[in-house]
């Protein structure tokens, strides 16, 4: 297969906004002239369960919507436990990882039937399995932008900021515009999301300079 194919997996929990992040990235790629095949989980699967979005991005060619095991080039992790889970199936030693380290607790943990893995151990387990890891404190940044619900857009901005995909920030912002800015009443929502995107973008750029 073409070496320019990028397999990207977004890992998270139902309700965290995987589908929106996937849409923003996919539509940006198509607007930049690329071919995309993506698969999201919808419906009942969204209700607190593990959710994944698969994206396959390539300048040319056509692909099925699912990433084969061990073939992820990039994992966008919205939650650490889900990131570790996805990494074990889709990751390989060359997989790059962008991680929001804030946990979201499964029902089995709330019920005290299982315990959430020790966060420090979990994060070092994740770091050990990946060639490049950048952590983004998406919760703090989303709160700064105005709502914790914008963590997904912060992480999308961070992905743009890593430069791992060859699309300019402006291309993502045009897609955000078309999603959130279609009428006047939505302009507040658009501003909030553009701000969240920008904060993520800057954080990823700084993380790169620091490392």
């Amino acid at each position, binding site marked *: 297969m073409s070496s320019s194919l990028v397999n990207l997996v977004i890992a998270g929990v139902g309700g965290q906004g995987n589908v929106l992040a996937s849409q923003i990235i*996919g539509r940006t790629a198509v607007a930049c002239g690329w071919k995309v095949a993506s698969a999201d989980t919808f419906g009942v699967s969204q209700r607190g369960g593990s959710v994944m979005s698969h994206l396959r991005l390539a300048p040319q060619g056509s692909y099925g*919507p699912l990433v*084969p095991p061990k073939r992820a080039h990039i994992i966008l992790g919205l939650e650490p436990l889900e990131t570790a889970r996805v990494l074990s199936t889709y990751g390989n030693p060359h997989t790059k990882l962008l991680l929001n380290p804030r946990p979201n*607790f499964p029902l089995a943990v709330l019920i005290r039937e299982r315990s959430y893995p020790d966060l420090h151990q979990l994060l070092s387990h994740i770091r050990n399995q990946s060639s490049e890891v950048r952590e983004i404190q998406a919760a703090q940044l989303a709160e700064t932008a105005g709502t914790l619900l914008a963590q997904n857009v912060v992480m999308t901005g961070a992905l743009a900021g890593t430069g791992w995909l060859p699309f300019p920030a402006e291309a993502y912002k045009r897609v955000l515009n078309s999603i959130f800015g279609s009428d006047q009443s939505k302009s507040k929502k658009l501003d909030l999301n553009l701000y969240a995107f920008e904060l993520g973008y800057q954080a990823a750029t700084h993380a790169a300079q620091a490392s």
Partner: protein
Amino acid sequence: MNAEVLLDDAGREVLLTGNEAVARGALEAGVNYAASYPGSPTAEILEALAQAQKLYPDRLYTEWSVNEKVAMEGAAAASFAGLRSLTIMKCDGLNVAFDFLTSLGLSGTRGGMVIAVGDDPSAHSSAKEEDSRYLGRLAHLAIWEPADSQQAKEMVKAAFDLSEQMGQPVMLRLTTRVCHAATNATLGPLPKGPAPQAIIAPTDKFITWIEGHKAQEERLLGAVQVANRSNFNRYLGPDQPEILVVACGPSFHYAHEAVEELRAKAEDWGLGSLNGIGILQLATAWPLPEELLLGYLKSARQVIVLEEIEPFVEDYLLGLVARNSSTLGQTVVYGKHSGHVASSNGIGLGELNPELVYRAIAKAIAPGALAPVASTATPSSKPSEAGEQPSFPGRDLAFCAGCPHRASFWALRSALELDGRRGIILGDIGCYSLAKGRTGFNAFQTMHAMGSGAGIASGLGQLWRFGFSQPVVAVVGDSTFYHAVVPALINGRYTQSNFLCIILDNQTTAMTGHQPHPGTGGGAAGDPLPPVPMEQIISGLGLPFTILDPFDIPKATAGIYAALQQPGVQILILRQTCALIATKREIRPEVYVDPDLCRGYNCSCFNFCSRVFACPGNIWDDQRGVASIDQSVCNRCGVCISLCPAGAIKTRTEEDVSHEQLAS
């Protein structure tokens, strides 16, 4: 929805989900009437068309119908009047509409009519994985199955043409990885000018009668000729393949990728160039293009069939090979029967994915070169399929934070405990189906199809004559009430059965994305339609009913307990808006835990808020040893405030906020 679905900009390349592509294809084909009952994975098709109705109100009418049978009947009506119509449902919905469908094929139609059915292999958002192709075949329809969005869009247009040519509906079989996958698609032109005049001439008759059967069989022969020439049946490979991969739906793309991979490894395995492999996308699932298939089968000694759910095409191919054995020679067909196409869960279970397809083809052409399938590795919510490591806790599906259903099931469970007669709860289909698991305190003892809980209750309520003395509670949703519960309630009253029907009225069709229904009012395109209140219907049935707020747990519990003591059919409406809508509609005060009041692990409640009530917003702060609220999850319903015995959970009023600001 991607607003680009509606752009009048032919030639533009956009990213469309399969659902959006079906909607766009129907628009490009000049569809005039679209009706559906929402079901995953196809709910977003009508949503996109409803947005189109706002732009083209003179060309298009869209409707969320009360159920799939009525949706199909409405679409057929438009077809009888010469218009193009589309009806959309999931496989379970086709079961509901099936009685009408088997009649409709016999009576025939006029304007192009397409039936889009979504099958959900792996049951990502379903209770079952059903293969609707068998029903389409039983109704003598032509069935087409696309592999991706571009093809789905073009196929809808061609399906309208075929329907008009045949004079009967054409079925489009879609699977989850087409509906909810997104791929590039090029927009075509949208029709201009006025819609056709709807008219039924005195000579137009659409009557189901046995004479129609012969005509229907003849029409299918015509569809075979169309299938033999169809460009949707794509082929990649040599003219005379030695090995033929027959791939249906998205597995065409998986097969392409797998064969490329195998070619890269072929030398290492001593397999030669593998240039003899051909891949045929079989898009015309029924009737099958025999001539086309026999053309490739002449040279192919090995055939591998890839299709989702049941071996529908495989069985037919085995028959085709057997019928032509004198001319074809020895041909081996690999697939589900041979065990080549199997997930780790078993043969015919779950959806296909690149790894399964790779292994199936590799096993057929290089047996022994591969280890058995280790994991299915598909994006799935189900912990058993997610390929997780044993040290990681799985993630059960859960009611959303602030979901009124959690409160309703807590009240119901409490009332049944108080009653003490081992009352049983019969489940139904909707978000509240999750109550079969821990999030709903494992409430259900039965769960089947929409409306079945009430029908089963009607039966159980007659069993007192055989010594049955347990209270019977059927739990239904508001959309389900209108869809299929009303006949069971009529039956219950008429036969003087004994049960309590609780309607969990969250004022929307929540599971599939908040579509309106007769109780909410409002049409698909947001047009103002006055509601048909469930209270009026229940009153009309002559049944007593009470309306309660599930968030008021003491009152709801008392109300359920009281209803359980009454004979006959009782109705209780537990009404509270879906949390996902309520939080968008109103700004509620923040809920928080006062760490000075929370008694921590030593409280006699034993972590009630998080451990027992199990709302994902109620978490535990292990560092401080007290309860806490996850503000990124909490939807601020405030139910936990009333349940905390220490009074430690509070809402942060504006006054609190200003005090804190002064203090800091």
